[in-house]
């Protein structure tokens, strides 16, 4: 067998192995539920906020937002819900905590949001956005101060 044909065969076998591994990981590992973080932590607050947004339960998501937020001082609840609905798209996404800094009364949680949005044959279909949530403690509960809109998500 010629060298180039052997190379092609070897590459073909490698492709089959990669596809098999990917299928296994996607179908088995991809369906495990995520672990819920403690509710009284900044990370847990951000997680529950994003989960509520994902489920389009905007009333629940609103409960995680601080009334002291500059945006919410000028825009009532209805406007906020309308803006979230107008930005709703069909892309699938997932969020991961990259970093968090917690102090006594305030915290920052940096989240990487991966949005799956195919855009051309050789373009990366996953767009990653970094969002830093700023939280403050109000009446013993962590509340999100900013950002309260997720325009980058869609």
């Amino acid at each position, binding site marked *: 067998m010629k060298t*180039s044909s052997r190379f092609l065969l070897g590459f073909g076998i490698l492709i089959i192995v*990669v596809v098999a591994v*990917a299928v296994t990981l996607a179908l088995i590992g991809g369906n495990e539920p*995520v672990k819920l973080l403690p509710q009284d932590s900044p990370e847990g607050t951000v997680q529950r906020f994003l989960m509520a947004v994902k489920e389009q339960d905007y009333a629940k998501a609103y409960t995680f937002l601080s009334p002291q937020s500059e945006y919410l001082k000028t825009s009532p609840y209805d406007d906020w819900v309308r803006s979230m609905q107008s930005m709703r798209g069909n892309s699938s*996404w*997932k969020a*991961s*905590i990259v970093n968090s800094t917690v102090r006594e009364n305030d915290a920052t949680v940096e989240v990487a949001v991966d949005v799956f949005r195919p855009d051309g044959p*050789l373009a990366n279909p996953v767009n*990653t956005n970094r969002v830093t949530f700023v939280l403050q403690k109000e009446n013993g509960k962590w509340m999100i101060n900013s950002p309260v809109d997720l325009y980058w998500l869609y």
Partner: protein
Amino acid sequence: MSTVRRVFFYVLALVTLGILSAGLINLLSLSFDAILARFTLAQVGDLRQQLSLGIAMVVIGGPLWFLFWSMIQRHAERDADESGSTLRAFYLNLVLIVSAIVTVFTLYTLLAWLLTGLRADQFSPGSTAILIVSAAVWYYHRFISEKEGYHSPVARTVRRWYVYTLSAIGLIWLSIGIVQIVNQAVVSLPIWQGEIIRAGFWNSGTQGSLAGIMTGGLTWAFFWFYTARDDISSALRQVYFYLLTILGSAIAGLTALIVSVYKMLYWFMGGDRDVANYFQFLGWSIPTILVAFFIWFYHLRIAEEESAIEQHYISARRVHYYLMSFLGLGTLIAGLIIILGIPLDSIINSLMQQTVVEEPGWWNNHLSLSLAMLAVSIPIWLYYWSRIIDMAEKDGADERPARSRRIYIYVIIGASVVMLAADLVNIVYQLLNGMLIGDLGIDVLRNMKWSLQTVFIAIPVLIYHLDIARKDQKLGSENLAARKNVTVLVVDRKSPVIALIEGRLGYKVRVSQYVGELPGDVPQLSEGDVERLVSQIQASAAGNVMLVLLDRNIMVLPYK
């Protein structure tokens, strides 16, 4: 006529033609308005203004255009050089292409209006006026062009651009119209869930699509089947075949197929089960696949039939194989890069990253898209690449030095090198940056994930094609005889000896036709004679060679 004087006349003819046409459009539009009694007393002022402007443009532009154009025509009728001039050819075909495009678009508007049932409130007087005037301008200039013929190479080339541009516009419009109307029919079916109001099938969208089919179909039929019917040997026709119709339809069809397979796989893996009317995409994807396949198949057959007549069947087939192989390989590479992201992301997730929100089946999207691309591309690439390997093994002496093959291989090698370079720059940058800021953590891996995916695929692609290029070089693919600029002076442009010479040289020659009295008997050349002539051409010292085939005293004249 001198060139400066010629430019003067044609520019003024064009400008005054524009003024005359605009004035006629103005007056016709007013007439239609009057017929429809659209204006009220309040618009009388506007009517007079518009009427005055229209009359002024016609009264001034008309005689001026007539003056300049009749002077141009008198020169053209007296002087063969004038009727065959480049500027005249350019002028006539420019007017033809602009007036034809305007006619086609306004015809579409008129047909769409006719399909509404002749509703007076939707009639466009301006558009109809433009249609009439542009059609008249087109018809008149076409009559002039056809009467004179296309004797110079420039005239023929410019005309080809006009013919194939309109043919392409017609074909694309026809195809889009067919896909749209089928899609509208599918969407209108009473099978979709969740509808509280359903619009009827016969609406403005459907009427527009039908008008598009008629307009596109008429345009394509006229320019392809009638105007371009005898133009078999031109290079532009080959570009039209292979780049626009064959490659273009293959890209459209394969894209629709990939989208269909992706969405079906995603649904089977459990994605978007709660999205109402998920399968409505089949309304556009299936007709796109079918229309694209028909266009691809039809033009491929025509190209192969014509190339057999013109005795360059093998090179035409070769171009087709390499184009399709390139398309398949590109899609295959894209699918592999995406699927490699799944295990890489798993590794990143397992290394300290904390996923807090993930929809079930997040990976199914990646998997569906990559599997769809692989499922479509692998059979295509394997089929065409194996044909290419066969061709190289059976007829390596002709196949390996072929330009299509060398372009294919070097484009892939070049693209792989560029991709590798960009990826390696990013990888090294991320590593160095991480080291310098003292943070070689998971973020570094995350930031270079896409580069790692493309590197892992680009390297084997590069190695494989470098190996093929190396083998071709060893077998003499780069030892080409230097190309000469060869001009052949013959009695008959269509002499079969020209194809023989081009076949032996491996490239096209320029042909000039002798118009004087023949000095002697036209030579009948055998294959041996042609072989000797080609050797003389290749051995000549200069880059330009004139080959004179007017009598038995055949001359091979190198010149600078």
